[in-house]
């Protein structure tokens, strides 16, 4: 029998395992380009619809360019919607026996989930960046420096990454692709629409404002706006705390459930 690997060796192996799973999941995107194409078209559609349907009404009432207001919201929405793909792919891997194979191998227990969320976040980064490019074509102008722009994109992706652990956990508990998508929308819709994404929170009824002001996606959007357009960056830090909290709760929960899943 082999000697027990040292802690450093086992950490190296864990990263190697995560790397192998990330590579596998990226190959899926490469060999099935439809996944990326349609998951890019959907947020682009939202960007165009919101900009041209609501743009006139909202910019005339609040003043200023609506695309500047809208794009941070669209970027956050893109990240959140994108996390709904994570549990669907996870359930598909469970159903097809791919995860049985992985779990019969002497590999790291966290690699399947870590590789899944990481690869999905890479795709998310690409699409979020694409929305920034399209937004710019529609007239968005960022008003802070390049460093802050990168920080804004990173904030969106970091929050989205954390949220994908939540949706992954949901997938492990529900274990049905259709059901998990519907359940996911129950989280994602209120969080994106009852937020500062598309309209100023001040226009909402008061009871809704209480929710909208204090929920994490509003903080994320406000943080992104502060980084791209200037202003106080408190929301950036609040978002980071939210994201870390989600990770602290849902990484162990997801791993626990993954181990119990048969």
């Amino acid at each position, binding site marked *: 029998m082999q000697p027990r690997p040292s802690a450093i060796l086992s950490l190296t192996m864990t990263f190697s395992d995560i790397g192998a799973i990330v590579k596998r999941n990226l190959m899926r995107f490469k060999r099935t380009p439809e996944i990326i194409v349609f998951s890019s078209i959907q947020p682009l559609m939202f960007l165009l619809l919101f900009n041209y349907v609501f743009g006139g009404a909202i910019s005339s009432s609040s003043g200023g360019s609506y695309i500047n207001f809208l794009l941070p919201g669209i970027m956050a929405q893109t990240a959140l919607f994108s996390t709904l793909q994570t549990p669907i792919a996870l359930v598909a891997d469970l159903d097809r026996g*791919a995860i*049985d194979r992985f779990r019969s191998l002497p590999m790291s227990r966290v690699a399947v989930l870590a590789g899944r969320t990481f690869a999905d976040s890479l795709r998310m980064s690409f699409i979020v960046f694409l929305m920034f490019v399209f937004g710019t074509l529609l007239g968005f102008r960022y008003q802070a420096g390049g460093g802050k722009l990168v920080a804004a994109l990173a904030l969106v992706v970091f929050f989205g990454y954390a949220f994908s652990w939540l949706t992954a956990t949901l997938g492990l508990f529900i274990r049905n692709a259709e059901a998990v998508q519907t359940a996911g929308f129950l989280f994602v819709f209120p969080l994106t629409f009852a937020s500062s994404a598309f309209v100023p929170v001040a226009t909402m009824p008061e009871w809704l404002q209480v929710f909208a002001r204090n929920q994490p996606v509003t903080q994320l959007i406000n943080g992104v706006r502060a980084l791209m357009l200037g202003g106080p960056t408190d929301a950036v830090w609040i978002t980071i705390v939210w994201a870390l909290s989600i990770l602290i709760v849902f990484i162990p929960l997801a791993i626990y459930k993954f181990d119990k899943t*048969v």
Partner: protein
Amino acid sequence: MKNTKEPVIVVKKLKKYFGEVKALDGIDLHVDKGTIYGLLGPNGAGKTTVIRALATLLTPDSGTATVNGVDVSLNPTQVRRMIGLAGQFAAVDDFLTGRETLMMVARLYHVPKKEAKKRTEDLLKRLNLEEAADRTAKTYSGGMRRRLDLGASLVGRPEILFLDEPTTGLDPRTRQELWQLIRELVAEGRTLLLTTQYLDEADALCDYISIIDRGKVVKSGTTASLKASLGRDVVEVVVADSHHDEALQIMKKVANCEASVDELNQAISVRASNGADMLIKVVSALEKVGIRPKDLSVHRPSLDDVFLAVTGKKTKPQVQKTKSKRGGR
């Protein structure tokens, strides 16, 4: 390494319930090194659950299972280093090529890259997948997928292989090829535990068989002893109506047992431990008196016959939770 007489896999009083369904209801197994052990039973009997417990994919409610003396519940990682698993639904990724699949699995076994490449190329050659190595598995036939899945289970060079219904859904020729491969793998010193719904498969491959029904071993023994006890081959002859009665008498005499007549097609059948031998005897006896059979056949008792003999009831598929969640293809 332990004494070769020592069983490689030992399962004691293993139980696993999924709610009301008793997937495993106290299973005992002893698998000797270098043998093929078959778990035979209908859908939902608990065969897959045994494999999943041994492959560390689920934790039993009670009882123990050890692989080379290592407890699967207490030390799953160590068990995983010794085993290879090929599943019922051929768990290969559609979007990866054969070569990529084997390389990925080698990496997950922490095989150094150079060695991983060597093993991958060796396996592709051995599994006759060289030509298809750079095509995605999406383009593979059912048999190719099974071979690739089996290949993935071999990358880690395991001493012990678990094959869950390795040939279900394959055409007869592909099935034969896979059987040949399985025999070779065991001839190289591996120990193999497989599940099957088919008596002929168990017969063709296994040294030792346990028949499983509703989570329990209802009968086990060497393949030969089981066959002898479970029922004998059936030799069936159809002759022209004018010779029917004469042929019936001759066959009774040759077989030295009662003969039965199928009411539909008037086929006369007798039972024998070796059907082929009996067929030859019957045909030559009939020929001596100038009777030429219109139709001849030998068949083995079916799984249903075996179940009827062992459990006294017809096989009835039971819904198995672990399976119902997976998509068949």
